[in-house]
């Protein structure tokens, strides 16, 4: 592992350091040389509007085009400065592509850009909340309260049985049924989320009033949170059923 400390933040330059022409975000349009990174969001990095329906095939093509221009392999014989920038730019490119090619990650990222903090559903967050005594922001969707209560009982029973080396076939069947239902609901939530992508994109094109946008935004946040909740439940059931 190597380590370095950045002394001063890189200044944002508008002219290519090499030929002085106006530069693009990643490389100079005139001479093709890699440029020091400018802080832009992932959509801007690819020159995309902040929309949720993305042509993934076209994105992949652009990713390959930019990779050929920015990857450190291309700069192996260049000066230290260019090598460093290519590393920064290329990691930025990879991070952006990884986020934008996946529709859910893309939505979560856009909501973050819109200033929304999603509920943290990770185990790490749970543990952190437990250790610090701060209530974790995770609310069980009201419609699910009863179901989750029952499911948790069954999961506990399953775990206890496992400890004793027993496997209750009836319980396994119950859990499998439960899982199927959860997965169906999960799919339904995903489909519903998709309808809001279209709506969001339309509003973005029309530069409509902020209130309407906020409504759609909040709807997506709610759907994503519920969807994550279901995902975690399915994961827990899978874990209990495995081993």
């Amino acid at each position, binding site marked *: *592992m*190597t*380590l*370095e*400390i*950045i*002394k001063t*933040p890189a200044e944002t330059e508008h002219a290519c350091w090499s030929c002085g022409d106006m530069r693009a975000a990643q490389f100079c349009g005139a001479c093709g040389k890699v440029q020091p990174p400018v802080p832009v969001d992932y959509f801007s990095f690819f020159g995309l509007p902040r929309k949720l329906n993305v042509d993934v095939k076209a994105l992949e093509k652009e990713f*390959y085009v930019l*990779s*050929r221009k920015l*990857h*450190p*392999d*291309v700069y*192996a*014989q260049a000066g230290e400065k260019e090598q460093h920038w290519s*590393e*920064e730019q*290329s*990691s*930025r490119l*990879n*991070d952006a*592509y*990884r986020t934008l090619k996946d529709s859910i990650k893309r939505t979560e990222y856009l909501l973050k850009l819109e200033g929304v903090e999603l509920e943290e559903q*990770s*185990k*790490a967050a749970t*543990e*952190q909340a*437990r*250790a*610090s005594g701060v209530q974790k922001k995770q609310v069980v969707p009201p419609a699910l309260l009863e179901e989750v209560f029952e499911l948790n009982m069954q999961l506990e029973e399953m775990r206890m049985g496992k400890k004793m080396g027993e496997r209750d076939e009836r319980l396994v069947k119950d859990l499998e049924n439960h899982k199927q239902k959860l997965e169906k609901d999960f799919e339904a939530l995903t489909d519903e989320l998709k309808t809001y992508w279209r709506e969001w994109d339309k509003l973005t094109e029309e530069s409509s009033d902020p209130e309407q946008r906020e409504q759609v935004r909040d709807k997506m946040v709610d759907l994503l949170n519920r969807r994550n909740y279901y995902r975690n439940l399915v994961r827990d059931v899978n874990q209990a059923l495995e081993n």
Partner: protein
Amino acid sequence: MAADRIVGIDLGTTNSLVAFMQGETPVVIPGEDGSNLVPSVVALDENNQIIVGNTARKYLIETPERAIYSVKRLMGRGVEDIQEELKLFPFRMADDLDAGEVLRIKLGDKDFTPSEISAFVLRQLKRNAERYFGEPVNKAVITVPAYFNDAQRQATKDAGRIAGLEVLRLVNEPTAASLAYGLDKKQNGVVAVYDLGGGTFDISILKLHDGIFEVIATNGDTHLGGDDIDNLLLTIALDDILGDLKIDLRRNAEAIQALRKAVIDAKIQLSGRPTVVLDLELPGGKRYEREITRPQYEQLIKPILDRTVGPCKQALKDAGLKPGEIDEVVAVGGSTRIPIVRALIQEMFERPPHTDLNPDEVVALGAAVQANILGGGSEATKDMLLLDVTPLSLGIEVAGGVTDKIILRNSTIPASAVQHYTTQVDGQANVAIHVLQGERELAKDCRSLARFDLKGIPPMTAGMPRIEVKFLIDANGILQVTAREQRSGTEAQIEVQPSYGLTDEQVENMILESFDSAEEDFRQRQIIEARNEAETIQTALEKGKKSPTWGLLSNDERKQITKLEKSLTEVKGGEDYQAVRKAIDALNQATTRLAELMMDSAVATALKGKTMDQADMGEGPEAPHPVAKAEFE
């Protein structure tokens, strides 16, 4: 001199190779003994000189305490995680090792870190390449198992530096193999590379798209390979001998090495024959004889091979693919010569694997392709670009001993993540960060990479400082960390304690300490330079002999020159650079008059209105004097 030559090196558990691009084809550079494979064996001879490769192998049996093999298994590891290996391998650790310290292995009465041992192998490969090219080689691409973690990669890079090589890139072995295969089959599709070598197993799934080799998932086991099969067969033989012949050889290092050699031979033969007989004379005169049939053998090694199934399934799952969606499968690594391994691959991926390229050489050939790409490329490689991934997730320890993953496995590299840190109490000046690698939820189950201390945070109310820490996994798969305090504008200082591995200072010291080898390298370099110089003089002399000036010399002069040239040719083939120098000087002296005469004739010709070029005196400005010194850096 032309652009620096970059070689491709496969630093293997069992064998190592060095290759380069000859025109449009990668080729392996043979050693002095004509063999392409340099066994990764390092020994100390009777005069305490380091011996590497085939010649070191005999020491494994004769003086096992003065020889080391399979050191790759120890790269980047701590004493607490090699206890299993110690039961199976005759590694002799230094007596004064502390937990968390970089391992040191005894060789005779000296001890070396795994990076230093590997550096001996690399230095041998470097020498082989220098002998082949007749010029120094200082830059290399080195391959590593795709599933190597940060510490293992860093240890490999350190080995390169200690050997005097600038390591331009670490390339994952299965990816390198795909480059070698992809060279002549420019096609699009999804390829799986199954790489079972001497000590490591990797599976990589790649998408090929108009010359872009995009790895989409990788998995593996850095302690699974042919070694494990050898150890299993060895254990069975030892038990047999104890049970049937009542001889306990388990403490007899020499006998164990002889037996190991016998079971390895048997293993290799069983790939081509239905049955093999182990027949070995034991200390005390008794013989151990045992027949092994192919079915018996296959049943024995099945559990080892089955350990490759899990990683393959996980890689397919991570790639989001079913076996039927894989277009091609490639088998790499010596252990894929075993028929049952090929059958297993066929069963998992629903098609027979490609084995057209030599499984021992294909990784080195691919490394040569990547070296060529990094050197600026050629016609054969001009559209090729490798996009690899990090095999393991990178995480940070958070409250409760939990790992918070910030870069997920199979992310294309370079990849980065930014974390923000703040303080918990007023005036707090330090923040500790624990960096981990692995897939497990709890920090204690992941691999500890390093502990950082952010220091010198200006005194502020708790929660006020905003320290931005950027984690970047570079194209070698090695982590870099940068930090800055954003609110006050003060720099945050970082102190790093790598959990395993050498500090820069330690590596520098090792480079200095390897004085013996520095001397050897110097000698090697001298002989290469002297040979080059001799070459230049002889070429110039050949031209001089064809010029009319040659006829102006006396018979004796011509005889003397021819005699001296002959003796230069003789010593040039040897290793004594001083002898070559002497012969060059003698020839220099003898040809002074020839040079003067040629110069005169050139001037005379010039006065007649001809140019130097037209005068018959060789290459003009490049060789105005037949004994001009070769230009050499």
